[in-house]
């Protein structure tokens, strides 16, 4: 069902945990599957560099793996660069996800966006392309329905 990359990130998730006094925290959930993801960011206020990134996830294997991969991908990047880390990019980095699991990667993208929004609000800045996070993430059903 899952690629080896997904399984690897599920079995050995990177960046699990919390960051105390994080610069930004974002929590999003998907009402359909009931899963919840929380991302912590430690951001250098001067350079806008993401120094550290951690996550906690209540969710499926794909949710854990995408959290892990997404945190890896934004770490060391600037906020502007991190905005380019889309769910598609995360999925590609994981060698793909099954169709029913696409929303899990959206969850990761949105959790990062929510943490960035939190940071932006606290510092009263505007981040190009960032929208107010939705509390509920869900994409269109990719299944054919009969």
């Amino acid at each position, binding site marked *: 069902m899952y690629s080896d990359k997904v399984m690897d990130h599920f079995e050995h998730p990177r960046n699990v945990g919390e960051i105390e006094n994080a610069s930004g925290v974002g929590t999003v959930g998907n009402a359909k599957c009931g*899963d919840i993801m929380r991302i912590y960011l430690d951001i250098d206020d001067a350079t806008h560099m993401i120094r550290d990134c951690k996550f*906690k996830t209540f969710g499926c294997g794909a949710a854990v793996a995408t959290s892990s991969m997404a945190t890896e991908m934004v770490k060391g990047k600037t906020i502007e660069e991190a905005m380019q880390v889309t769910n598609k990019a995360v999925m590609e980095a994981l060698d793909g996800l099954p169709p029913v699991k696409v929303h899990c990667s959206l969850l990761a993208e949105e959790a990062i966006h929510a943490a960035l929004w939190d940071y932006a609000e606290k510092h009263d800045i505007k981040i190009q392309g960032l929208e107010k996070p939705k509390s509920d993430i869900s994409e269109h059903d990719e299944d054919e329905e009969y």
Partner: protein
Amino acid sequence: MKKVIYLDNAATTRVRPEVVEAMLPYFTEHYGNPSSVYDFSTPCKKAMAHTREVIAGSLGASENEIYFTNGGTEADNWALKAAAEAYASKGKHIITTQIEHHAVLHTGQYLEKLGYEVTYLPVDENGVVSVDALKKAVRPDTILISVMFANNEIGTIEPIREIGEVAKEHGILFHTDAVQAYCHEPINVDELHIDMLSASAHKFNGPKGVGFLYIRKGLKLRSFIHGGAQERKRRAGTENVPGIVGLGKAVELSLASMEENKKKETELRDHLIHRVMTEIPYVRLNGHPSQRLSNNANFSFQFIEGESLLIMLDMAGICGSSGSACTSGSLDPSHVLLAIGLPHEIAHGSLRLTLGEETTMEDIDYTVDQLKRIVERLRSMSPLYED
């Protein structure tokens, strides 16, 4: 290959080697079409008759009340759709429950689209259907009551006798989906007033792709699958002879060891439940504490999600399930766990372990040890868990 501890016997079971052995000659040696007149097909006809006899004996039924099908799902579809069609002139109301297998639920929903009215009875926190609620739901135009014998997720055994009595009293047909119970629990269709009963061989160490529907003599049920004159003109299609032979053998073997097996399974299951409930915090046992299938344990672990749990168990070589296998295409939490009143996020963290005839005490202890470790690990990753 790494050792696998298979604790998903409610999803499907290993075919017993004796069953395969019994089937083999019917692929390459006695391969005739049972409908043919020549002597070459006689062993096929005899073998089918034997299976029918064995099943009839197991239920206190007669041979011409047993109709072979492709499995439990087809039997459920047939029972509901054909009964609805046959008795439509009497009424269009059907009563079933919220915790049926999708084979019944989705067929019920289909019938609703055709203009039937379906009442889905609620259950209590243990998953038991209320006989009082059933009595209140009965109407003059009720034509069918369909209540499963035992639930596939939480293992609760339903009050079939009482339900059968209500049905009989009101002259309403009574169908039971006994896919999880047949060959695991003793069943007598007359004592329990059952008019139709579905079963599937792969749930009791028989082959996949074969099952049966018991139809009480005299019922005016028509075909669901139309065509040739097989199964006394009620179920068309060349018969799956090897499958039917395997079904018969599996019934024979299961019946012979049923009591002994139940005793063993109950012991192992109770040990499993005891250890999990005492050694892991924030856990709930789903299903009736005593009135349950002897091989079923179903837990909800707070703060963690089922799929992750399953994958980690899988990595440890343990096969379990969360919700039922056939619905794993879906992301929704189990309708059964919601029906017994669990909130969404707790329903999500559920695990079903179902034992089989090969399960040992070591398997159980290893499983609990792994479970403790995994639950702890997942909770440490969960945003919902604060210790």
